Each structure stands twice: as structure tokens, then as C-alpha cells.
């Protein structure tokens, strides 16, 4: 290879002939296979530039001769997934609601599909496990403002509550204070009476008889004479232990004063019927379904 065969005495290896301050460099070239592999990677990289998207430009990128796109790949994969699931989802869409829970395979499918879609669409308000929050009902408990049967749950999901949809649930808690229907002390009185309905201790000086009278005149039309509620109007049962907005006196007074009108969107146009069925079954099986 080299003309000058200068052999290092200690190691017995040829030197490159370069010397710096008397220090010589041993000639130990890289193994050939290593060098060839290195060249191969360079050639590979050039091929990669040509074939695949590689170079960012000011407004875009070099697309490569394959026109490869991960986004297109994902679309294809999703399409394939839909194909695989298609048959099962069709059978889910075709089955009557009441039958789904009796068929273990359909129940498993509905719960799995429902859980995913619930996480994507419902969890922001109702929580990932359906535990709800102040103003957003807990779907695990057994209190249902608009009914807890499969059909009732599906109706609520499909058309919503105060959603503006023609078939959506309507029903408003009036703002008794803001609209001047009741005076402040009347509201406080009836609030203590309402709390006592579910066994909560009223204030010592509260006049429960007066409260009952105000209740009968103003509230009973929706909540019933005994405060048991009415699912046709979405009027909550006031005698149970579940409070959507909270059970302390201040919250109850606020509810009576300003009214409540939580909105549940209609999902009918956004999700396909089979998926709505799946969510229905999933929510029903969370534990509160009737």
C-alpha cells in the first residue's frame, strides 16, 4: 500500500509515515467489511432520499418517488379495521337493545366499543368512568333524571337534553328568585324543607310547615307532592341521597333562586346508530341501569 515501509519496533505494525514531535501514527486501517458496510449505508441513504419523503422545503417537502405518506397508511389501516369490525357492528346495530345484554358476545362487544366511544365523547363531562361531576350526572348510581331503562338512556343520548333537537328532552328548573316568584326568606324556608325530605338536618329555626306549604304551591307540580320527582320533565327525586348540584343549604338556595338548565348535546347526528347502542349498553351496565 504505502511506499515507505516504516515498521514500529514495539508493536511490529507499519506506520503511516507521519510523525509529530517524534510520535508516529500506526497504520491500522479499518477492517474492509466495516468500510464496505459504511459505503453501503451511504448508498442506502441516497436511495432513501430518492424513494421516500426526505427533504423539508419552504412550503412542503420532497415527496419521493413512492409518494409514501404515513397519514395515507393510517387511513388505509383504519379502513381495514372498519372492515374487520363492520360485520360485528352491523349485528350490534341490528340486535334489539334488550337482546344485547343477554348475548355475552354482543355484550362484550358493546361494552368494549361503548367504553372507547364514551371515553372520546362523554368523558369530558361525565368523567372517564362515568362518575360525573357537579351538574353532570353520575352514571354509575341509580338515580336517572330522564329514566334509566335501555330505551330511555338511548333516547337521552340520541337527542340530548335541552339540546335544541326537536326530540330532545325539555324541562326547566325555574329561577324562582331571579324571576321574583319567591322572596328570599321563602326560598330559604323551602330549601330547608327540601333538604329535610332526604333526611338532611334543617336549620333549628326553620319553619318546615311553611316550607311544605310553599313547596306544594310552587314545586309540587313538577317534583310531585312528596318530592319524588318526575322523569317526564326531568324533575329530580328530592327525597333520595343523590344531589346533582350539591345538598348543602347554600347550593339548594342557589338552585331555587337561579334555576338550573344543564345541556346534554344530541349525539344522533354525530355517532352512528350502532355506536349509540353500544354506549347505551355500556352506560346501562355501569351499574345504574334499570
Amino acid at each position, binding site marked *: 500500500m504505502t511506499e515507505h515501509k516504516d515498521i514500529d519496533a514495539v508493536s511490529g505494525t507499519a506506520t503511516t509515515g507521519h510523525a509529530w514531535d517524534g510520535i508516529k501514527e500506526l497504520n491500522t486501517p479499518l477492517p474492509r467489511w466495516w468500510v464496505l458496510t459504511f459505503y453501503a449505508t451511504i448508498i442506502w441513504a441516497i436511495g432513501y432520499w430518492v424513494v421516500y419523503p426526505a427533504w423539508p422545503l419552504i412550503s412542503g417537502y420532497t415527496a419521493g418517488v413512492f409518494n409514501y405518506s404515513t397519514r395515507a397508511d393510517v387511513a388505509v389501516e383504519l379502513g381495514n379495521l372498519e372492515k374487520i369490525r363492520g360485520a360485528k357492528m352491523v349485528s350490534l346495530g341490528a340486535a334489539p337493545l334488550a337482546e344485547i345484554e343477554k348475548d355475552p358476545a354482543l355484550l362484550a362487544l358493546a361494552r368494549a366499543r361503548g367504553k372507547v366511544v364514551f371515553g372520546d365523547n362523554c368523558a369530558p363531562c361525565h368523567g372517564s*368512568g362515568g362518575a360525573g361531576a357537579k351538574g353532570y350526572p*353520575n352514571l*354509575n*348510581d*341509580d338515580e336517572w333524571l330522564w329514566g334509566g331503562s335501555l330505551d330511555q338512556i338511548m333516547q337521552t343520548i340520541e337527542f340530548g337534553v335541552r339540546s335544541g333537537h326537536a326530540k330532545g328532552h325539555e324541562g326547566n328548573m325555574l329561577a324562582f328568585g331571579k324571576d321574583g316568584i319567591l322572596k328570599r326568606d321563602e326560598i330559604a324556608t323551602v330549601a330547608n324543607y327540601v333538604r329535610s325530605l332526604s333526611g338532611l338536618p334543617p336549620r333549628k329555626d326553620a319553619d318546615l310547615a311553611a316550607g311544605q306549604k310553599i313547596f306544594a304551591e310552587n314545586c309540587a307540580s313538577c317534583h310531585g307532592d312528596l318530592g319524588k320527582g318526575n322523569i317526564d320533565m326531568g324533575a329530580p*327525586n328530592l327525597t*333520595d341521597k343523590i344531589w346533582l348540584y350539591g345538598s348543602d343549604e347554600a347550593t339548594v338556595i342557589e338552585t331555587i333562586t337561579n334555576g338550573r338548565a344543564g345541556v346534554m348535546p344530541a349525539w344522533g347526528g354525530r355517532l352512528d346508530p350502532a355506536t349509540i347502542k353500544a354506549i347505551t349498553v355500556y352506560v346501562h351496565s355501569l*351499574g345504574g341501569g334499570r
Partner: protein
Amino acid sequence: MNKIVVPTVDEADQEGPLYEAHKKVYPQAVSGTFRSIKWKLMAICLGIYYLLPFVRWNRGLGAPNQAVLVDLPNSRFYFFFIELWPQEVYYFTGLLIVAALTLFLMNAIGGRIWCGYLCPQTVWTDLFYAVERLVEGDRRTRMKKDAADITLQRFFEITAKHSIWLMIAWWTGGAWVLYFNDAPTLVGQLLTFKAPMIAYIWIAILTCTTYILAGFMREQVCVYMCPWPRIQAALTDEWALNVTYKYDRGEKRTSLKKARDLRALGEPVGDCIDCYQCVAVCPTGIDIRDGAQLACIQCGLCIDACDTVMTKIGMPTRLIGYDNDINIQRRQVGKPEIYRLIRPRTIAYTALIAGVGAVMLYALLTRTLLDINVLHDRNPVAVRLSDGSIRNGYTLRLLNKRGFDRTVAIDVDGVSNPTLHVVGIDSITQDRPAIVLGRDQTTELRVLVTAAADETQKSVPLKFRITDIGLGEVASATDNFVMP
């Protein structure tokens, strides 16, 4: 006690560089005690490997009837009467521990028995050497042929050798995949090219590795790639029997003729006549007379070679034999030989093997065939119902490892008057739901437990119990019942 003489650093340096350019080894054919042991062990090892997938084992209808089967799609491992589930892989840990301890014990008794007789690299290389010898002739013929130019006949010879090698390698890969699927079915599929792609890929991989490792790399694997020689060498002690050149008998070595002359003059001469037969037959190409060394796989072929020569020249055999340096040094000072196979080390290894084996056997015999796992709902952890009672949700996973369907009843203890509801299942009896578990599979259930609120406690231990209504088998799992 006499210590083994360890060469000084300077001497060790003279042994050679860390890596040497490959020199092709041409082991000569040899016959004798150890060669015949090796033939027999090779037949047993290869026989087990190639034929085991075809051994049948009746497990009843619907279950695979292959004695040894790794069923990856269904996550089951079958080994004769044992059927293991994925969560029982720790049995393999136990098996590996026993295997390691057995290796230690083998080392303590007879050095690198594994390397010399049982290691797949040794077995397959030996087989490939046998093929090479059959096609190309013995050591001298092969060396001559390799040095000469390639003729047409030589070309056919080489082609024949590599063809046979590739066939063996291909069937080695083929036998491998048979452990992962029903062997007769898969053989049929392979012949008609209908087998799954992964089978062909694995056959290709194992064909390549067998062909390369046993055909070309051979002793290079033992010397440079394999960690075992290092580990095994460290495990060998002064009492272990190793293939040893008995230098007390062999030195000084010289040719047969010269030895006779010197002996006639009364000069001290050893039995070794420097015929290099021990080197010629060695599959790793070493000289055993240099003492114990890393590259020696202790296959004992040099013992056979030396014995043949010693018999021919009328000297006692076993100039090379299984021995240790302690005995050599004792003989030199006129003390009798001693062999200690039963010593603290071997006793300890045996006891450990027996102990681990007993633990595994106990675990295997008492393993549960009915099991339950509980996962508490996290969001929400507890729900207050309209009547003020509290409900907790759980996901139960029930395992039925038996080969038939069975009905289990679910009970729960821990809270007073719990109500149990299984989602999607109507209870057969009130408050005691009964579930049918499919054979050999797991069943997941969503279970709701309701109990009266207990304001004094935040969390109560809860115990789920499942009872096989037919067999009375019981399994239980504990979790907590949480108050909001």
C-alpha cells in the same frame, strides 16, 4: 494441599494473541471409548430433537394431542401431562435454575462435560464433520485436496458436502417449527407450501445459523462467541476430573526410536512419543499437552487417539485421561491417587437441585386449576345510591384451567349484608350468582357489590370466593370495599 501451578503473566503472554486469524482445523477420524460415547449421545440428542414433536399425547377432544407443544396463538405450553398458562412461566425459571445447577454439578464432577458431549454446537459440528469425512475423506486427504487445484470431481465433492449440510440444516430448522404447531399437520402444509409464512421464515433462519455455525464457524464459536467456556472454566476446581495430559508420565517426550535408545542408556524418557495424534484428532485444533485451556472442549477424542498409539507401542494407556493436577503432583512424590467426587461442592449442588426440584414439583402438584383475580373500579371507586347505600364495582377474571365447562357460584364476605350483582347475568339463585366458565379459558365479569354505608370506616377488606358447584373446588381473592 498442592496448588495448581498457574503460569506467570509472561508465560501466559506466550500462549498467543487474543484473536488469531482462523486456521482451518482438519480433525482426524478416531475410534475408542469416548468416540463411541459421543456417537451414542449424538444419536440420543438428535433423536430427541428431531422426533419429539411427533410424540402424541391424548388430552381429550378439542385439545392438542402433541406431547410437547408451544401453542403461541392460544398462549398455552404443553409438556406431556403438564399444561402451563402464561402466568405460570415461572416454572421455566425453575427449570433454568435446575439446568444451571446441573451444569455446575457436571463441572464439579467432570469438567466441561456439557461442552464436549451435549452442547448443540458440539453435536451438530460433530455431525457436519462426519459428513465431511464421508464425502471428502479423512484429515490427510482433505488437507491435500484443499491445497490442490479444483478439478471437476472436486467440484462435485464440494457440492455434495454442502448439499448434505444444507439438508441437515434445513431439517434442523424444520424440526424447530414443529414444536410450535401440530407436527404432522405442519409437515403436510410445508410439503404443499401452505404453511404460514412465519414457519418458512424460522426454517430459513435456523437453516442459515446451523449451516454457518456447524459448517464454517465450528470451534470459533466455542473460542470467541460462547460465554460458557469462560463461566465453566471459572466453575472448575482442583478436584474436578478434566481431560489431562499426564506430564508425569509423558516428559520428556521424544520419538519412539530415540526414546528406545535413550532408555537403553538409562536416561529419563516419558511415554509420549510426540506423534501428534492427540492434536490431529482435536476438533478445536489444540495441543492438550499444553495443559488445561480455554479452547479445549474436553470431548475426550485425544484420549482415544493416545490410547490407540499407546496400545500399538505396548505402553500403558491413558497417558491422556480424565484426571486432575492434584493426582499428577501426588504421583510425582510417590503418594497414591485420590478421587473425590463426593465433596462439599458436589453435595451442595445436588442438595440445591433436589431442593429446587422439590419446590417445583410441589408447586406443580398443588397448582390451582380454578383461579380468580379482582380489579377494583378506580373511577369512581365508590357510588352512593339513592337510598344512601354504597356500591363498589369490580372486574373479576375467573380462570378455568380444566378441560371441561363448569359452574361456579360467587360469594362475597367482609361487609354486612352485601348484595351481589353480575352485569349481564341473571342469578340462578337469589344473591348467589352462578356462572358457567368455559373450558380452558378465562371469563371476565363486571360485579357490583352493594352494602349499607358505614360512616365509621373508609375501607373494609372484601373477599370474593368462587366455588365449583360440581367439584367443590374453591378459589378466592381479596380487595377492599371503599366508602365514598
